[in-house]
């Protein structure tokens, strides 16, 4: 919603482009079968199209709107998402525009009780979190889509019928240019929380709704405070309700505030009430200069997801598959991971390289990530919006004790999530090998990064297929060389990185590690091998190479063998 007299896209700072409907071949009765049709050009649909394009797979992307998202909505981009954006060739404008951060503060009745510090290992390339308005996220992704010949972007295109068969999917679509039928091998439903595809297939999200409601409001102001997450419990500016404040680019600030118990939604959303409440909150944080109201919306916490993210040839990605509370900032970030996870698997299947059954790993892996978010989000949501008198009392007791005591302070931690570990996935068949390691990243987890002597980073060298990281003193031995050759034959995109403790290896991809820092990070010794999947999660690790196991893991990840 926007202030009186303004249209839904009259922003103080963002110019909304208008995308026309195009005349497409189907309107001339030319029937083409498309490999993938993606419904919904939000951040997740755009990313999915770019991931497919990275593997040379064409897609048609349709969206019923004629422009980008009407408000800032999802504003926090986590580090693993920056890696996804980097690997689809879209990260540069994000780095330039977004505001990186790693700290936060929680206050109780005006006093600071908790200092959030997000882990930031020295080898990482990106900060733990970046703030950027969703319309910029979409704009930057759309710029990348527009310059990609493999993606057929069709705005103002809405589907009204879906026919799923064993051999393909047909969609009846309409746009101002006319009605036509779209034929696809696979459909990706990136059509958001109210997913029309989900309804049309008669599928339902299951889980819990929480009572507490938040107004989310964007304002523009000159306000001198670093980019941090600030949480205010029992602030005098919003008695009885929590307040969250985030900085965004262009002098825009996000103010989220919880409605008091029994407060009417309709009343709360009226402009004069938004202005009064935001004004009181700003006075409370010491901002006495002018400010302008940009946009506002309402939010309530839910933990809902589909039982299965795959329905035949239709895949649900992002909010159409799961709705998570905002407090852990996992809505956008998990959606991007969905698009990345499904993208490489679907691309291999569509390229005829992998068996269709590889796609069966998408739902357990990504639904597992959602259930993991639920477990944490339920805790943080109970803290942010206590559902009953018992939870409210316990929270007030913990917060008030936090003023003088250290022990309850971490309860105010927003629990912003780490990427999910696919340790129980069928694509991680030798997780038991973790027992050989004292430290380092476990099987299924996202690979850590390392800074290299040349100023670059280890993961800059990872491929878009499988990547082996082999630790050596000097050149690899014959057995290791043979294994690398076999992996190369298995995967034409295979890349191997040699981490050389001695700096004497003559192989071209050797990365010197004279001080042993990379080896320590991975808990490796000479002969240790890590196998990374295309999404940079660890498919397996072996203290000393076991060729049969490594080859089998690669074959399973590439869909050449069923687990």
């Amino acid at each position, binding site marked *: 919603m926007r202030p009186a007299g303004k249209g839904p896209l009259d922003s103080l700072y963002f110019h909304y482009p208008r995308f026309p409907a195009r005349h497409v071949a189907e309107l001339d009765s030319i029937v083409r079968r498309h490999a993938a049709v993606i419904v919904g050009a939000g951040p997740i649909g755009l990313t999915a199209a770019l991931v497919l394009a990275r593997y040379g797979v064409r897609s048609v992307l349709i969206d019923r709107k004629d422009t980008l998202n009407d408000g800032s909505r999802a504003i926090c981009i986590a580090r693993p998402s920056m890696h996804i954006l980097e690997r689809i060739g879209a990260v540069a404008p994000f780095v330039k525009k977004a505001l990186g951060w790693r700290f936060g503060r929680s206050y109780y009745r005006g006093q600071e009780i908790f200092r959030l510090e997000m882990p930031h290992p020295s080898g990482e390339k990106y900060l733990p979190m970046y703030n950027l308005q969703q319309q910029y996220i979409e704009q930057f992704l759309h710029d990348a889509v527009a310059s990609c010949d493999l993606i057929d972007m069709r705005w103002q295109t809405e589907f009204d019928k879906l026919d799923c068969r064993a051999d393909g999917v047909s969609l009846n679509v309409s746009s101002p240019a006319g009605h036509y039928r779209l034929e696809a091998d696979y459909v990706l439903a990136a059509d958001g929380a109210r997913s029309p595809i989900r309804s049309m297939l008669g599928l339902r999200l299951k889980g819990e709704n929480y009572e507490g409601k938040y107004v989310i409001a964007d304002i523009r102001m000159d306000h001198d405070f670093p980019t941090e997450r600030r949480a205010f419990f029992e602030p005098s500016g919003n008695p009885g309700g929590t307040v969250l404040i985030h900085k965004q680019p262009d002098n825009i600030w996000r103010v989220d505030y919880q409605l008091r118990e029994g407060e009417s939604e309709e009343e709360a959303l009226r402009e004069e009430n938004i202005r009064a409440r935001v004004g009181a909150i700003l006075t409370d944080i010491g901002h006495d200069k002018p400010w302008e109201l940009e946009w506002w919306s309402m939010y309530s916490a839910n933990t809902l997801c589909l039982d299965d993210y795959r329905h035949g040839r239709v895949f649900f990605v992002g909010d159409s598959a799961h709705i998570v509370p905002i407090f852990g900032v996992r809505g956008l970030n998990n959606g991007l991971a969905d698009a990345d996870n499904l993208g490489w698997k679907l691309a291999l299947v569509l390229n005829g390289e992998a068996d269709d059954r590889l796609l069966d790993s998408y739902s357990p892996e990504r639904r597992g990530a959602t259930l993991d978010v639920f477990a944490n989000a339920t805790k943080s949501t109970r803290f942010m919006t206590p559902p009953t008198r018992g939870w409210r009392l316990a929270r*007030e*007791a913990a917060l*008030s*004790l936090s003023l003088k*005591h250290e022990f309850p302070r971490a309860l105010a931690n927003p629990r912003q999530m780490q990427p999910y570990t696919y340790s129980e996935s069928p694509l991680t068949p030798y997780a038991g090998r973790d027992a050989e390691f004292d430290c380092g990243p476990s099987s299924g987890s996202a690979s850590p990064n390392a800074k290299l002597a040349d100023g670059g980073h280890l993961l800059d060298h990872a491929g878009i297929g499988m990547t082996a990281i082999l630790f050596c003193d000097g050149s690899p031995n014959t057995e290791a060389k043979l294994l690398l050759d076999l992996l190369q034959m298995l995967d034409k995109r295979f890349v191997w990185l040699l981490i050389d403790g001695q700096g004497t290896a003559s192989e071209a991809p050797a990365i010197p590690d004279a001080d042993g820092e990379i080896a320590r990070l991975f808990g490796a010794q000479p002969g240790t091998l890590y196998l990374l999947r295309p999404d940079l999660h660890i498919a397996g690790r072996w203290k000393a190479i076991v060729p049969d196991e490594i080859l089998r893991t690669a074959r399973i990840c590439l869909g050449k063998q069923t687990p």
Partner: protein
Amino acid sequence: MSTMSFEDIESAYETLAIGIDTAGAQREALFLTRLALLLGHELDDINAFRNAIEAALAELE
């Protein structure tokens, strides 16, 4: 098993009664919740804490 003497138990009982009155009817629930969290932390034993919660609930009339 607690080795607290009867004198100390009696003193705890009296101090608690005085604490509840000092907090006042409006704040007694918050006071008791804070007290429970502080004692739970001091106790340093989550099972003992859970057992105490159960025991206290079981005898509620």
